[in-house]
């Protein structure tokens, strides 16, 4: 692999995390130079490794598109923690690490002998990050935490749907999975900085449920203030009209339009060749437009349907009206803006071939994220980690291989 510099060069993270939350959190460190060593086992593979889609539709632990999309730059150490000799290897890894991360149901690490108190004995200034579904204690702590369940627990579907129908899940089923990694990564970097300055490690405990609630605080406050629960309002917005998703030419093609001011409304009317609406008493003020929102939506739909969603977006944007293509996965894959900003990394993977790995959501001007290596095959770096990082002799390593520790 390419050993280019990075912000976190030299930093080592023992990552026991799995599913989506684990890798997304690690990604912030791995992409900026940390050596993130993912501890995993084929005895109980990560749920992502056994999730579709697979390369050529052939299942296999190293062939999942889901797993391989999210795990670039990460090392894989195969270690079966149920094996009696695994703990000694894990402790050697901890001794070399700055951070231990995990997002298991609380108790798993403790059962393995890797609770925070044990880790401290091995590495006094270790930072441990726990990030389970509901936090490490409390009556729900042992609850399974699928993303869709967490989203419902946090109330997100209350904000999605039509007045005449029931609540709907967020379209990205594991939506909450991308929320806690951000809070966790910010806290972890602060903890590393704190350790560098004070010599003190610490335990950080996050709950995916709790961090998700940070995405709905205004609605909580509104309930406290007025007793009003959220209602389903389709695509409308109390402060804008028109504000919706409009049909465009083609199969299931749509464009959003959101008008927040008189000026934007006038621009829109000019664009669609209906300048007379600007002063029409039905539409001349925000309140009149709100009153006649249904009529406005019909008028606009009658215009947008004649164009592709890209054409609607381009024309509206040229006229200074906020509008955008409702992009599907294929559109995102080819999005010129996201491509220019390197959201996706095409990396050669031994099983996947040239395959799109996720990059970073932002750009740092001096220390950009680097695509150093593709997602790991399960156990790909076991020998490297054991001999080069943990300092095992070849003999020791071979003996442990023989004992079946690295499965």
């Amino acid at each position: 692999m390419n050993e280019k510099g990075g912000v976190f060069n030299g930093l080592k993270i023992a990552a026991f995390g799995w599913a989506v939350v684990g890798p997304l959190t690690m990604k912030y460190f791995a992409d900026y130079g940390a050596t993130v060593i993912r501890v995993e086992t084929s005895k109980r593979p990560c749920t992502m490794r056994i999730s579709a889609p697979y390369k050529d539709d052939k299942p296999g632990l190293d062939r999942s598109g889901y797993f391989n999309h999210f795990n670039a730059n990460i090392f894989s150490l195969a270690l079966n923690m149920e094996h009696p000799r695994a703990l000694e290897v894990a402790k050697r890894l901890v001794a070399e690490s700055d951070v231990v991360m995990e997002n298991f149901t609380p108790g798993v690490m403790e059962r393995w002998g890797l609770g925070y108190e044990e880790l401290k004995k091995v590495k006094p200034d270790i930072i441990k990050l726990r990030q389970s579904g509901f936090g490490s204690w409390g009556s729900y702590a042992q609850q399974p935490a699928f993303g869709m369940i967490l989203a419902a627990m946090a109330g997100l579907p209350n904000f999605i749907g039509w007045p005449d129908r029931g609540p709907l899940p967020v379209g990205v089923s594991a939506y909450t999975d991308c929320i806690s990694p951000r809070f966790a990564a910010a806290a972890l970097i602060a903890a590393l900085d704190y350790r560098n300055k004070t010599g003190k490690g610490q335990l950080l405990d996050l709950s995916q449920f709790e961090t998700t609630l940070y995405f709905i605080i205004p609605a909580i406050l509104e309930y406290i203030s007025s007793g009003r629960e959220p209602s389903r309002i389709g695509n409308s917005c109390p402060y804008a009209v028109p504000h919706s998703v409009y049909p465009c030419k083609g199969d299931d093609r749509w464009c959003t339009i959101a008008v927040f001011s008189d000026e934007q409304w006038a621009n829109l009317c000019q664009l669609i060749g209906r300048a007379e609406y600007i002063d029409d008493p039905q539409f001349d003020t925000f309140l009149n437009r709100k009153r006649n929102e249904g009529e406005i939506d019909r008028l606009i739909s009658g215009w947008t349907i004649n164009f592709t969603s890209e054409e609607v977006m381009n024309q509206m944007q040229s006229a200074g009206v906020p509008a955008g293509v409702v992009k599907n996965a294929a559109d995102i894959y080819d999005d010129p803006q996201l491509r220019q900003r390197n959201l996706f990394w095409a990396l050669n993977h031994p099983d996947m071939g040239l395959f799109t790995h996720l990059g970073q959501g932002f750009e740092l001007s001096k220390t950009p994220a680097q695509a150093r290596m593709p997602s790991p095959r399960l156990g790909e770096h076991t020998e490297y980690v054991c001999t080069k990082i943990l300092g095992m002799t070849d003999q020791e390593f071979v003996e442990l291989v023989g004992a079946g520790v690295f499965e």
Partner: protein
Amino acid sequence: MLNGCRALDLTDENGFLCGKILADLGADVVKVERPGGDPSRRRGPFWADIPHPEKSLYWFAYNSNKRGITLNIEANKGKEILKELIRTADFIIESFSPGFMDSLGLGYSVLSGIKKGIILTSITPFGQSGPYRDYQTSDIVTMGMSGILYQTGDPDRPPVQMSLPQACLHAGADAAVGTMIAYYHREMTGEGQQVDISMQQSTAWFLANAIPLWELSGLVLKRAGAFRWTVNSTQRQVWQCKDGYVFFFMVGGRAGAKTFHELVNWMDSEGMANEYLRSIDWENLDMFNVTQEVVDQISKPIEEFFLSHTKREIAQGAIDRQISICPLSSMEDLLNDAQLKARNFWVEIEHPELDTKITYPREFVKSSEKVCDTRFRAPLIGEHNEEIYGEVGLSKKELVILKKTGII
């Protein structure tokens, strides 16, 4: 943990969360607003439904733990004062249109000349470069451009938004991480830099398996409403109960067997499971390839069972059995939630001007070293002018003049 760090937060609602996260981690975050208050204060909902710049709940939500000053940074005198403040700062967070800071003569090279190692975090809808850079947007537009909107909604209707803005929160949280990475680098090397956040990109960052599914299988994930589509069937995920809705998706095989087993036993104990449900070998049921007929036969008694119970009964039953079923929480449910209470999640914060206390989330992380609590409410307009301008040597007399001339 970030005690001793200072951030100048010049953002509007697109960037509030970034500074909030840094403030919760201990940084001194100073919200810099234009004289008279930031336009984002006009954003509802409002306390007691009274539209007023000191009553915006959106402002309250994401500006607690920050202090606040007013400053006209477009005026020369205002710029001078800002530069003085920058000398005391580690981070500048802004969400102006791309190029605006440059046009004020406050581009990164100027800023880093004033304070070596300064970190400038810019949050914009599409980022500082690229073909969409100058596009106008709002939450529904950005969510559409990020891929989430298309996948959300009923198949027989247009895609539907999440009515509470989300793109600004993905971007704000991502900005906090980007800022911290830049900070770590600065602490190691002394070098500052720019952090360029795109709301579209931060939101598109996580689309679960949609991108690999397109690349490997040529399939575009579509919206499925309250259902999940599999090879031969559609399966309900949102169910009605006596007083609300329940979320439960039918996972097959080993992963889902426990929930199915426990649910059927639960139903059985109330005489609501039928022979069919009891006879299924859940371990070997492949829910991904089952036929619609099987799905319907499984669903019907479950539907009846949920309908005969309240949200509270279902929540408690699921917790007792540690199974993956949960009711949709209302805001009231969340404020009374047993788990959140056990973790001391909510905290009451004084709002003396409103003669009340308001409940907020206390902290997003529990640290064994440092408390990361929400400590005080969002600032009033210019609340800390005297305090903070005093620190950079402005006298009260000078402040009176600056106020009269519209600088602060």
